[in-house]
């Protein structure tokens, strides 16, 4: 039955959708709500304040963690998204698709603590092997290559985020017709120029979404980052260690709320931008599609 014929069925569907969204988002909204309460969590009185945010931004440890998180996010995005793009291009071109897709998506199916600890053991052993190699060659140049550090955290996070970027980019690439690249080549463009002028503008929304996704994943990731990082902290590792050591403080709520604000702002901007762009394009198309009177 057409659900528009029965307005109650239609409303029920929307009501259900709203319920799902509320179930998912209520804890997030509640944390945001608490983060502005001068009296903290569980207090009867609600007095609005920016104090907890001011404290977050005046705390050198937290600001340092924020800087490290941003550096991690940017570095991982800059490396992982182009890698995922290349992988998606290869996947579209290859005939045997099963093996590459298994390799690329495998990290999604390995629990984070297992993957994190496996990489931890791998880097430790690799580090020991390189130290031994250095000793044999009489040099200490290899000693710190794979000591737990920013590099090891970046590698772990790249492995974690690539499958997501790959899928997001692949979905956008699905609509792209390879004949267009060939047409560009036939017009004199070399392979890179054909990609940059013709293919990239059409898959750009996917690449931008993959970037946003990667930034959010890096911001939120705890297990792999805490196992693989060296002597620095990220926003999430500080937040969770605070919760484990001293319990949630109003400052912790402010930090959690900030991570959520960043994520929602990023995703919201992409959705809005896509909607506005689609609407503008269709308006322009409608205007141009008027009959030509000549």
């Amino acid at each position, binding site marked *: 039955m057409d659900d528009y014929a029965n307005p109650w069925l239609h409303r029920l569907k929307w009501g259900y959708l709203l319920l799902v969204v509320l179930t998912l988002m209520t804890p997030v909204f509640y944390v945001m709500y608490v983060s502005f309460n001068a009296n903290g969590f569980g207090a009867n009185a609600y007095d609005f304040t920016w104090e907890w945010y001011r404290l977050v931004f005046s705390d050198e440890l937290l600001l340092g963690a924020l800087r490290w998180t941003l550096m991690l996010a940017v570095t991982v995005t800059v490396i992982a998204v182009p890698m995922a793009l290349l992988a998606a291009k290869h996947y579209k071109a290859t005939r045997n698709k099963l093996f590459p897709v298994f390799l690329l998506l495998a990290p999604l199916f390995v629990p984070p603590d297992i993957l994190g600890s496996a990489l931890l053991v791998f880097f430790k052993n690799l580090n020991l092997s390189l130290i031994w190699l250095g000793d044999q060659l009489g040099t200490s140049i290899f000693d710190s290559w794979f000591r737990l550090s920013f590099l090891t955290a970046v590698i772990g996070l790249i492995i974690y985020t690539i499958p997501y970027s790959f899928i997001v980019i692949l979905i956008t690439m699905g609509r792209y*017709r390879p*004949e*267009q690249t*060939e*047409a*560009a*080549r*036939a*017009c*004199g*463009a*070399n*392979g890179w*120029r054909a990609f940059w*002028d*013709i293919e990239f*503008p*059409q898959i750009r929304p996917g690449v931008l979404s993959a970037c946003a996704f990667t930034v959010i994943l890096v911001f939120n990731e705890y297990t792999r980052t805490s196992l693989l990082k060296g002597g620095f902290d990220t926003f999430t590792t500080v937040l969770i260690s605070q919760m484990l050591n001293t319990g949630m403080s109003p400052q912790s709520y402010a930090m959690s709320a900030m991570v959520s604000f960043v994520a929602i702002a990023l995703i919201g901007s992409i959705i809005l931008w896509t909607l506005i762009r689609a609407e503008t394009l269709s308006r322009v*198309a409608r205007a*141009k*599609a008027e009959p*030509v009177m*000549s």
Partner: protein
Amino acid sequence: MTKTPAPAVELRGLAKHYGDVVALTDVDLSIAAGEYFVLLGPSGGGKTTLLRTIGGFHRPTKGEVLLHGQEVGHLPPDKRPTTMVFQAYALFPHMSVTQNVGYGLKVAGMDKAQAAEKTAAALEMVGLDTFADRRPHELSGGQQQRVQLARAFVLDRDILLLDEPLAALDAQLRKDMCLELKHLQEKVGITFIHVTHNQEEAMTVADRIALIANGRLVEHGAARDIYRAPQKAFTASFVGENNLLSGRVTETAGQTARIDVGGTALRVDRRGQQVQTGQDVTLSIRSESVALDTAPDTEEDGTSLVGSYNEAVYLGLTTSHLVHLPDGTEMVSRVIADQDDMMPAAGAPVRLSWQPDAIRLHVE
């Protein structure tokens, strides 16, 4: 002494394999500059592979591709003096018609004013100057193909490859575009190499046609010769509406061979082909060359067969009369519909006859 100009395209021993699959084998072909050449054949026969190998989209497994005498087998598409029109979906959807047409000039680094002038001229040539600001999705299928043509012409390359350019268009538009293509080729004077599986389209545009099937070049020649005097049985089966008859040579005398077809002896001109008594051969005769007679009680004359009338298929301009021979072979006699004044009853005995030079012998 004047030097003969090199052909626009020359293929020598060309082969393309995908693992064990042979897409093309032993193709030797020469296409003159300024010629409208059509690669005709069934789907999956290798004609598009051949076109794409000329254009640089496939690297040949064996053999050479020479364009104007230069070996280009190792060069990518953008380094060849060719450009291409694709079947569909090949316009850049994020660019306007003008940007699409001017793209190659932009890549070549041409001055903007000059590029704009050339683009406008190319759009005018294909009759789309009033559509310059539209996006591809705002154009009809025929208009989109015209944009592709303008995008190709604007580059001043002297070999244009067309890969089933009309396949996505409806029948009437395809007919119109065929003539338009032919006229455009005559106007610009460059070499067109056009791939199609549609014989009517091929006949309309081609100076010469090459038949490609099963990865092989079956036969090539002037469009009229391919239709009227096919050398190979495959050509006869693919081009025009030919009746194919299997028979066995019973006697040869001078240029004439006597062939037994289902117990009836037919006389056929050998046209220089060597045949031996007892050899199995194929005969072909175009359906419009076969006359239908309702009085079959005449003697065997070597240029007719007797069968039983089956049915008539009215096709507008023509009517096809279907006749079953005693061995089960079906033959067709096609006549102009308005001249169709006889309609035997189903199962009635009829005689199918033809002029002696209308039947052709194929020995391969």
